[in-house]
């Protein structure tokens, strides 16, 4: 068992994982899906279908618009009823197609199972991952095939599988590891083969002892290690996780590959296995629907493009009107304001919060308590930065390492005067990036 390194800072918010013991349920087919055409970080997709086209489940309906991009596949068979826009989880309007189901769920057979994957060339496997439109399913939604294509100068000798699920309330990854451990492990083997990497560590927080035990028994036979980790948010953040399981420090401004590591989420690994073994593109995922107002919280296998309203109907609606609906977890999720927002590839959870459970971040003064500094996992100084940013001193913010912020929210969680620290830092990062671009174009 690898020893665990303790990353700097971090917090331990109430875990509130009420759905941990609830089996994954598969959602019944809906009549309509609204599928956004950009669900990842990177270049937008080019739509391949037009109104009245008929499509099959898993058919490519939008092709990647570049290398750093991931195609979009139809969640079921039916007719395209509109090429339109919709409000995405991030709040902005994005291009989308509306798909009216024909109820047959007829599969498309463009992608065939690669039964002999153990002997397939890594590049073919990587191509399959790209063709299946797989992105990081822990939340970041970065195209997976890109992450699996490090330059030759950066050999990878450590694959970290992220089963940490450090966000409170969410249990989708936990359930996946319990119910489909073999799929996760096969996906892991495929990824390891692509990377040519022998050492695999699966990080799981010790609030999931059942998952640790199960994965440990199975992983042992495959010569992989399971690292039980002491619960601490944000252990699932890439840099913190790599440090926790291996003691390697990703350099500031750098990527995991700079220390020879690649991190993949357990959900992504399972999607890889399905793409390779079953020829199944990424058009559904496991999502936790939870929160005090929810009548029947649970874990659901939802098709991409399921509108929030339909998802909440599966959970039998709400007892009372929530103050917030969040796509993702309470620490890093995105608050939405419409019930039309669709589930996308990276929607790990839908969380409803009552007004007394959520908090309003006002611009109180910084009283210099330093609590934000103590908990910042990147060891930067959010309080000082936020004052600089309020004064529009983005040059200072850059010098004080605003770009290192991973937006984990630990600082704002602690701040006794409820300063909107993450809001400030996001703003500064966007501003600094814009300035750097302007600088380059000069």
């Amino acid at each position, binding site marked *: 068992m690898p020893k665990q390194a303790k990353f700097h800072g971090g*917090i331990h918010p109430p875990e509130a994982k009420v759905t941990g013991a609830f089996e994954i349920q598969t959602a019944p087919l809906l009549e309509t899906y609204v599928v956004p055409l950009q669900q990842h970080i990177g270049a937008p997709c080019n739509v391949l279908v037009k109104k009245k086209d008929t499509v099959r489940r898993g058919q490519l309906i939008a092709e990647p618009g570049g290398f750093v991009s991931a195609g979009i596949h139809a969640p079921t068979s039916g007719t395209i009823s509109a090429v339109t826009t919709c409000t995405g989880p991030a709040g902005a309007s994005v291009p989308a197609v509306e798909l009216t189901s024909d109820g047959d769920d007829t599969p498309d057979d463009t992608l065939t199972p690669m039964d002999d994957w153990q002997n397939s060339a890594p590049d073919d496997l990587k191509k399959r991952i790209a063709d299946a439109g797989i992105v990081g399913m822990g939340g970041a939604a970065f195209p997976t095939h890109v992450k699996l294509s490090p330059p030759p100068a950066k050999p990878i000798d450590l694959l970290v599988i992220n089963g940490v699920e450090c966000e*409170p309330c969410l249990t989708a990854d936990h359930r996946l590891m319990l119910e489909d451990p073999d799929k996760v492990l096969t996906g892991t083997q495929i990824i390891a083969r692509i990377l040519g990497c022998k050492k695999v560590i699966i990080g799981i927080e010790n609030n999931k002892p059942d998952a640790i035990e199960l994965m440990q028994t199975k992983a042992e036979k495959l010569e992989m290690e399971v690292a039980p980790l002491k619960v601490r948010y944000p252990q699932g953040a890439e*840099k913190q996780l790599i*440090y926790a399981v291996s003691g390697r*420090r990703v*350099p*500031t*401004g750098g990527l995991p590959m*700079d220390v020879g590591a690649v991190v993949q989420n357990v959900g992504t690994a399972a999607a890889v296995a399905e793409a390779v073994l079953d020829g199944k593109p990424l058009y559904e995922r496991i999502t936790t629907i939870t929160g005090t107002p929810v*009548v029947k919280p649970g874990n659901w296998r939802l098709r991409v493009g399921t509108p929030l*309203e339909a998802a*909440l*109907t599966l959970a039998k*609606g*709400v007892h009372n009107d*929530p*103050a*917030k*609906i969040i796509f993702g977890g*309470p620490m890093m*999720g995105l*608050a*939405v*304001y*419409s*019930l039309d927002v669709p589930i996308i590839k990276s929607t790990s959870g839908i*969380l409803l*919060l009552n*007004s007394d*459970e*959520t*908090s*309003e*971040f006002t611009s*109180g*003064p*910084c*009283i*210099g308590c*330093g609590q934000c*500094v*103590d908990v910042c996992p*990147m*060891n*930067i*100084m959010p*309080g*000082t930065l936020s004052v600089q940013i309020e004064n529009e001193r983005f040059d200072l913010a850059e010098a*004080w390492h605003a770009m*290192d912020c991973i*937006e984990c*929210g630990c600082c704002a969680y*602690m*701040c*006794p*005067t*409820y300063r*909107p620290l993450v*809001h400030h830092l*996001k703003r500064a990062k966007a501003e600094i990036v814009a300035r750097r671009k302007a600088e380059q174009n000069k």
Partner: protein
Amino acid sequence: MAEETVKLPNPSSLVVSSSPHIHQPQNARRVMLTVVLALLPACVAGVYFFGWPALRVILVTSIACIAFEAFFCKLFKRPNAIGDFSALLTGILLGMNLSAATPWWVCVIGALLAIGLGKQLYGGLGYNIFNPALVGRVGLLIAFPKLMTTWVTPTPGNFLPDAVTTATPLDLASQGTINADYFNYFVGNMGGCIGETSAAALLLGGVVLVYFGYIRWQVPTAYITTLALITWGVHLANPATTPTPLFHILTGGLMIGAIFMATDMVTSPMTKLGAVVFGIGCGVVTCVIRVWGNYPEGVSFAILFMNALVPLINRYTATRPFGLATRNREANA
């Protein structure tokens, strides 16, 4: 679908804001209130030793500070801030830093200096550079040097004492009389400010604050250790004419200064390393004043002096981002 009616959320009641969406159950108000509670043992000790006049001083400074806070907030058109309890805290600290014999109008002037000059002129809570209570105290010390150094003899348990003036142990020491009456010093049975005398009560409050994480233990630890080391050196050189480190620690305003004044969040450094540097600085300056300066007491001046250096300390003790060292090492390799 089943035919039951399912209630769906009302989208118009939804709030959208940046993550995170949860917060720990704590706020500035609760922090301030806890500090006030942590001061209570020392207040009680002060009233026990100096009687009702001590309570009167603390009440006057507290009420005056709150009133001035409300007044200045109005004057500067800021939201009324008395609800955050920081003015109450300043008032109590100021009162504890005065002699029980202080006339009420001096208390009021002190409160005006503390809240007006020490805090609101800078922009209110969070923007002040100097500890407001110390600004009040030192302002009074300069304006009324005689009044401010009139100490009354403690009368344990007698709440209506006849004010008999006395000198503090530090005063006596600076005149060459060193009384090694440590037990009385520790419980607070000596002349001095209302709240500074009982080291025992102050330590109790300090433990509470460290437990809740509302003060950085590094500050009092570094402060007291530095003072002890320097005065120990001085004492070793001149054992007959200089007080022991223990004497320095237990007398005067060191305990209240190190535990409650130097640790004020706003006017002390942000980082742990900064807190150590700050504490050492306070210790050095206090010794310089006590041992070589003209004043028998140096805690207030030392902390104010170090307050002024906090921006500088913050700059040079800034944290190193995770992963910064690696990059440099690799670049050199």
